[in-house]
């Protein structure tokens, strides 16, 4: 095992041959799938403005799904590729499969797609070959924050680079592999007010290519967020027009949609968007596309985690909800073809459903012109909260946000909460900016909501 090249496709192809030969001997097994992932990661964490810790890990493992009569399914996993370990997971998988209930909704595992789009810039050899000294050079601009006008009271964060290779095979002939690279930097900073009260700021960036990463930008954004947060104020409870920053659009509007259109949640009546297919759920200016083929973006991929070819889909078109995300199981249950949204976070994880890259529609106005038109309102920059996905009700803290007074962003907010049903929020969209920016895998603009309820301490 120590000599094994965990990124070698030939090794996993021959491993699959060996596994399938063993599985084919059991007549009760009707379908099977082997999902392998191999990765390496290097990270450096810093604290108090200095490097504190370095970390290195190589890992590899496989998850095996076996399916018998009437949809009975068992899944096992291991990080050991020895003969005895393979025999063990097959044995355990058969036991688990027998214990599972029948599942009449199971139709078939994924079948090979007719065409796989090739995707560009998902692997950066520069990330693959990064060493610790080079990483230190890359993150130096973070430490320059110590020289700023207001010296940070705390400065911490993490840089990590990783390579991940997945190999997917199944008994229907799926045979796909893809190698991807990732790099991530995050920074958290605090500044002190004159009275000793802290204000915190944070920022991060994740990319597939090293040259797309801007450490200076991450450092500046985290400093500016902390600086803006000095001398926070409370506000009165009431209804206010809201200007959402791209960060808030990504987390408050787009991320909940991507989770609520999970067909499994829809099929089990666990999604607030479940009864809304082909209905108008948002302002007509709001469109959303899922595009897995944009070169160099975080969720760019030519196939999903079952090996099915991905394709761009229009989720929301001019305010109308057009499509849900499917994997092979939920698509089989719905009697349609999967649209390639099967996901897995790890070889030991069960198959789920998730998004690729999300592109929101653009508007016609500069965001600063939208801001200038608000006499009194709220600039909502970030929330760490999620909605109730069953009802769509959102009640959460505006973790970073400011008052808007006479068209300008002024004081930072303390203890301000927003409460609104998300379908109401989608319909309250009044203006969308023409500028957009990438927040992780989402390309999003500034958005003005006509109004929403804000709770405050005043």
């Amino acid at each position, binding site marked *: 095992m120590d000599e094994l090249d965990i990124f070698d496709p030939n090794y996993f192809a021959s491993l699959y041959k060996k596994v399938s030969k063993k599985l084919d001997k059991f007549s009760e097994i009707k379908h099977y799938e082997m999902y392998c992932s191999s990765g390496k990661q290097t990270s*450096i964490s810093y604290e108090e403005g200095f490097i504190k*810790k*370095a970390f290195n890990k190589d890992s590899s493992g496989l998850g095996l799904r076996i399916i018998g009569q009437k949809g009975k399914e068992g899944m096992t996993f291991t990080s050991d590729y020895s003969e005895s370990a393979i025999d063990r997971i097959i044995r355990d998988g058969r036991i*688990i499969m027998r214990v599972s209930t029948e599942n009449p909704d199971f139709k078939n595992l994924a079948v090979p797609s007719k065409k796989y789009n090739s995707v560009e810039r998902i692997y950066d050899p520069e990330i693959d070959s990064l060493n610790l000294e080079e990483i230190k050079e890359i993150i130096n601009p973070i430490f320059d924050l110590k020289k700023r006008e207001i010296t940070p009271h705390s400065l911490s964060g993490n840089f990590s680079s990783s390579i991940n290779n997945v190999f997917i095979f199944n008994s229907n002939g799926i045979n796909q592999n893809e190698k991807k690279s990732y790099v991530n930097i995050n920074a958290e900073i605090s500044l002190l007010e004159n009275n000793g009260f802290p204000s915190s700021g944070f920022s991060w960036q994740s990319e597939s290519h090293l040259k797309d990463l801007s450490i200076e930008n991450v450092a500046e954004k985290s400093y500016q967020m902390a600086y803006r947060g000095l001398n926070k104020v409370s506000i009165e409870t009431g209804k206010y027009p809201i200007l959402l920053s791209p960060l808030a659009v990504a987390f408050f509007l787009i991320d909940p949609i991507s989770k609520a259109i999970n067909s*499994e949640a829809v099929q089990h*009546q666990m999604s607030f968007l479940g009864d809304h297919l082909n209905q108008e759920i948002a302002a007509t200016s709001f469109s959303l596309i899922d595009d897995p083929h944009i070169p160099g973006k975080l969720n760019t991929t030519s196939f999903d985690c079952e090996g099915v070819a991905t394709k761009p889909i229009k989720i929301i078109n001019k305010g109308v909800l057009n499509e849900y995300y499917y994997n092979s199981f939920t698509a089989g249950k719905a009697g349609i073809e999967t649209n390639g949204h099967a996901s897995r976070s790890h070889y030991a994880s069960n198959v789920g459903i998730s998004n690729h890259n999300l592109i929101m529609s653009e508007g016609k106005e500069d965001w600063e012109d939208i801001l200038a038109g608000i006499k009194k309102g709220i600039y909502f920059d970030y929330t760490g909260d999620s909605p109730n996905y069953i009802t769509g009700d959102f*009640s959460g803290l505006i973790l970073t946000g400011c008052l808007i007074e006479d068209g300008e962003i002024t004081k930072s907010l303390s203890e301000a909460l927003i409460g609104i049903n998300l379908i109401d929020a989608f319909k309250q969209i009044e203006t969308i900016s023409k500028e957009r920016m990438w927040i992780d895998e989402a390309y999003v603009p500034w958005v003005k909501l006509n109004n929403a309820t804000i*709770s405050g301490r005043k």
Partner: protein
Amino acid sequence: MKKQNDFMENIRLDRNDLNFLRDMAIQQGIQYFNIRCTSGTTTLFSLLNGISKSSSSGIGKGFSVQAYTNGGWGLAVGKEFKKASIESVFNKASKLAKFSSKFSKGNYEINPTSNSKFYHEIKQKIPLLSISLDEKMRLLLEIEKDAHIDPKIVSTHINYSDGESEKISYNIFDQFIRRKESGLLLNMQVIAKQNGKQEGYFLNKGGLGGYEILLKSQKIALETAKNALELLNAKPAKPGKFDIIMDPSLSGTFVHEAFGHAAEADGVIAGESILADKMNTKIGEDIVTIVDDGTLEDQFGFTPYDDEGIKGQKNVIVKDGILVGFMHNLETASKMGVKPTGNARAMNISSSPLVRMTNMYLKPGNSTLDEMIEEVKNGLLCVGWTYGYCEITGQFMFKMAKAYLIENGEKTQVIKDAAISGLTLSVLKRISMLSKDYEMDPGHCGKEGQSISVGSGGPYTLIKDMVIGGQ
């Protein structure tokens, strides 16, 4: 039939197999190291409407070496419990630590731990291994049926997981600890629907031990279903300020999220805690006493020995409103010149032990819930938690699962889930009543990407003037 984890690999390494690392450390100028090895198995069942969504089992094993020298730390991970592999990973960790030390803030010594050898095993009244997978599935299907008490119940989702593991740790001070752990977690979500309106409720049960935990948790379906049905009549919370009574689970979330993280010494040292300059000062009302107790055997955060080999203990953090202690790992205790408190915990061997809570609770008071409700003119009795967090400024948010309006001392209308926010140091001074009743809940806590099991709890707690995120 075969039991689910009869192939779990025991870790055969003993102290004598690892003490060569002490010589390597001296040769390489490593001031401190620990090696942590684990071997374990897990079983998961997920049922949607009583039909298997996924069923899985797996085994995992591996080890990591953490090394320290001159202010820098390194962590490297390996798989095979063989001398050559351990040597190789030690060398990697040593190199990583030396790299970090070149750019670190400065040197500090890690204070020695005892050089004893310990063994500890979590007690299982009914061993997980003694129950077949068929029996576990049969009971889960029975539990699921209990949720269907009304035609308005339209959907159920059960997740069950259990696991056993063996862990050993060894460090530069020749301390060797072997632990056997086991536990079980069960959660359930039920959806109710009426006239186009849908509501859901979620409950979580579990603990450390054996199959007896599942047997004790069988009423989860009925309880979850009743709550989901009740929410069909719920109204959204009104926005603004309210006096609130938090139930024990929310009191636990409050002390954990709003206070506990600020009392973790790594954040204090990093300048990321509002409690940094508050030691021995009054930060809350006299009735506020907050404890982190790793010795509570029946709770989810039970920590007989932490991941650096320190014995778990009861640590009083706030006594009668005065801050009297922080939680520590070896590093923070060494830096601050105090004894470690048994709070070094890691999610797995690939993660460094951080300062983490174990079982944190707010000590109960003398009131009854009825007396507390009578005190409230316009407020909310908040029930059940969903999640929460606190930023380093002390501004926190946590979400209740539901509430009841209190009008002139009487509990009235049921209210939907909503967010509660406040500033920790201000809120601790607005706690006015605590009940005699007290409960603990199992949960998971996230920090720096690591999720660990914790217990949290407290009494019913009356707090004046909290901001609620209503519609």
